[in-house]
């Protein structure tokens, strides 16, 4: 540890609403291959708005919450700096560019999606995109199958109920979440 943990932003200026908006706006411009590393670099190393520990703590909260982690991060961070309007500024700054990119992609897809060459390219990319999700799951699941406990069963039951049975997400969560949390609580004692 290079620094003593200080209260948040005690010696750095609190970013303004415009700072929050443009910080996230800039992060999305460098967005190929994940925005998290860029966010961490800008907040902790360049602007020094947060210490590394504070960043990790906020990120842990955002992983714990439902919804896209990085979108949650904009809200938590903006809100800590400037309250609800700060959260909105950071959130909007983060969404402008990806929204425009995707809107353009959508317009192009609706117009050229049936062109033969486009069809063939997408026919190749779609199985690869599915493969990337398979790899993500394998990486996340591997440590769970190495430990003892209910986690692998919860994981398989959830994947089976949604992936093969195609049951509605809400009902599966209503049953699985209390079961799994209860088991985790019981295991801890």
């Amino acid at each position: 540890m290079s620094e003593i943990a200080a209260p948040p932003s005690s010696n750095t200026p609190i970013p303004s609403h415009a700072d929050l908006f443009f910080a996230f706006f800039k992060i999305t411009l460098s967005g190929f291959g994940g925005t998290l590393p860029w966010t961490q670099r800008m907040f902790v190393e360049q602007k020094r708005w947060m210490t590394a520990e504070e960043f990790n703590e906020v990120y842990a909260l955002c992983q714990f919450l439902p919804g896209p982690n990085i979108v949650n991060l904009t809200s938590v961070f903006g809100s800590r700096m400037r309250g609800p309007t700060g959260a909105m500024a950071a959130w909007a700054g983060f969404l402008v560019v990806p929204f425009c990119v995707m809107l353009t992609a959508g317009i192009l897809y609706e117009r050229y999606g049936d062109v033969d060459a486009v069809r063939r390219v997408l026919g190749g990319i779609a199985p690869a995109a599915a493969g990337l999700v398979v790899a993500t799951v394998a990486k996340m699941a591997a440590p769970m199958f190495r430990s003892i406990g209910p986690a692998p069963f919860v994981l398989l039951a959830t994947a089976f109920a949604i992936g093969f049975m195609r049951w509605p997400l809400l009902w599966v969560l209503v049953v699985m979440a209390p079961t799994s949390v209860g088991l985790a609580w019981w295991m801890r004692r």
Partner: protein
Amino acid sequence: MKADGDILITLAVQFAIMSLLAFGGANAVVPEIHRQAVELRSWMNDREFTDMFAISQAAPGPNVMLVTLIGYHVAGLAGAMVTTLAMCGPTAVLAHFLGRTWDRFKDAPWRMAVQAGLVPISVGLVGASAIVLTRAADHSWVAVVITGVTAATAYWTRLNPLWLIGIAGLVGLAGLV
């Protein structure tokens, strides 16, 4: 016009619910989006769904932007705005409120149990996404091989996934899939 308004309300409600159920991020709700858009409401077919997922993975930006493509396909610009707001809004409001009280129960035992209980569920949800996407996208042996090779390469190497997407696109362009 009335039908349009109805569709926008359906999009807003369904995606706002998904936003609050998306434990594990955007990939966790891919099966539910597929169930709603393809199976229940016939807004699109399997091919269009996997196309849009592929585009959202290949494009820069977070993969939650899949919902923008879906919204645009279903109801144009208004649809894109509604799905994006509904997917990214409610969870951000929740994050704002919890972000302020989080420190208080950061070390509470119940909080750790909740987290430990939710992690395997979120991995299971992403696993369900892998199942749904693979079944929807892999209609030929070549497609199955592409999925397998991509998964293995992404699992065992640190190659940028964009290379895999690019190579798969070229294989497709060559007419091999």
